[in-house]
């Protein structure tokens, strides 16, 4: 063990963490928005909304993320005629992929609300939109927050896949240092430790939220 290799290249490697966090945050925010729309479409009784959303979700949940990245990477230039930037390719594939997972979490959260709630809301004269916005979503969101946090931790880990199209995020930089210094044991243990620290914090938060939710629903 020779931890000098870690401290010598610490700044360079940690510089990649910024990009990793950026990828994760953009994916979570945009993925949630797209996921909510998909979930609402999947719960809709309109066939032309239900079927495309269902097909979309099943399609992306059936594929490995890494393949989605390549597929968009090849597909995009065909449609636009311009080569795709690595960052754009990564972010777009992350968003369309993770939105499918978010959609299923959100759908389950919405379905966990008893039907009587929406009937009561409609009976009191709220419109369909108002029912969703003021009655269903606030309650459903509370139920799904733990699962959403867990999925966000998964997304944070998944951003490491941007590695394959050459984006210099955290893991790519560790890999570059390893190529120069050939100290795989120390470097990959270090990379693992950094991911572990961040992800356990997220997992712990998710468990706390879950416990609190259980207490509140019992009370």
């Amino acid at each position: 063990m020779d931890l000098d290799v870690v401290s010598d290249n610490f700044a360079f490697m940690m510089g990649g963490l910024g990009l990793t966090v950026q990828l994760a945050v953009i994916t979570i925010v945009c993925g949630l928005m797209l996921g909510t729309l998909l979930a609402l479409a999947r719960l809709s009784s309109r066939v032309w909304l239900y079927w495309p959303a269902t097909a979309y979700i099943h399609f992306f949940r059936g594929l490995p993320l890494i393949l989605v990245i390549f597929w968009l990477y090849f597909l995009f230039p065909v449609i636009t005629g311009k080569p795709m930037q690595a960052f754009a390719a990564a972010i777009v594939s992350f968003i369309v992929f993770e939105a499918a997972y978010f959609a299923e979490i959100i759908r389950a959260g919405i379905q966990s609300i008893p039907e009587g709630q929406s009937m009561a809301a409609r009976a009191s004269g709220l419109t369909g939109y108002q029912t969703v916005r003021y009655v269903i979503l606030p309650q459903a969101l509370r139920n799904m927050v733990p699962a959403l946090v867990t999925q966000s931790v998964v997304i944070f880990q998944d951003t490491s896949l941007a590695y394959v199209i050459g984006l210099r995020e955290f893991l790519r930089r560790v890999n570059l240092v390893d190529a120069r210094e050939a100290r795989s044991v120390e470097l990959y243990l270090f990379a693992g430790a950094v991911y572990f620290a961040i992800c356990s914090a997220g997992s712990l938060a998710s468990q706390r939220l879950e416990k609190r939710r259980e207490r509140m629903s019992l009370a």
Partner: protein
Amino acid sequence: MGILNYTFDWSVLWRDPYGGMLVKGILTTLQLSLLAWLIALVLGLAVGLCRVLPLRFTRLVGGAYVQVFRNTPLLVQLFFWYFAAPLLLPKPAQAWLYDNVPNYAFWAGVVALGTYTASRVAEQFRAGLMAIPRDQYRAAYATGLTTVQVYRYVIAPFALRLILPPFTTEFLTCFKNSALAMTIGVMEVTHTAYYIDSFTWHGLETTTAASAVYLCIAACITAGMAFTEKRVRIPGMIVRR
């Protein structure tokens, strides 16, 4: 330049030598995910059991295993097994490895995917055991069964059927995750699709075909398991739709 200024050539999917490469890639994907699943099942059940035993030590070890493997990306674990693990071996063992195991990348992939999936299997297994009502144990003991008999005749038939659906999901995840092995050079189907692009510039066709392969295999497994679940369902209990 513009929309669809691209000549499709689907014959790269079956033309020699690319057709053969794709078939080999599909077989490698299946081999990799099945071998990893074997490790994941054995190790996952062991770790899951560790987590429910009434012993502090085993619970601590099991918990630590799950935490470490779930909170680091699979890609880091793959790199660890491929690049770092051999360096931890004594020198003669290293030399033996490099001389006698030509497809070390494949085996590193199997171990990485297996140990990673084991942490997920362990959690599902534990959740399945916890889902069994306490009364089942009490009633079984009250009728005079021994511990082995309680598990063999009451708990296992119950738990095995409860965990079948989540285990199907975990296998499919393992199957999809096998694509990550391409990063250490394993020629599974995703890598093959990407690789053929470097000769033909027809990556769009090959990645589309690879997507179809994943979706078809996943659909077959899902259909097969849905059938099995219906066959073995516990009367009176709701089966996943």
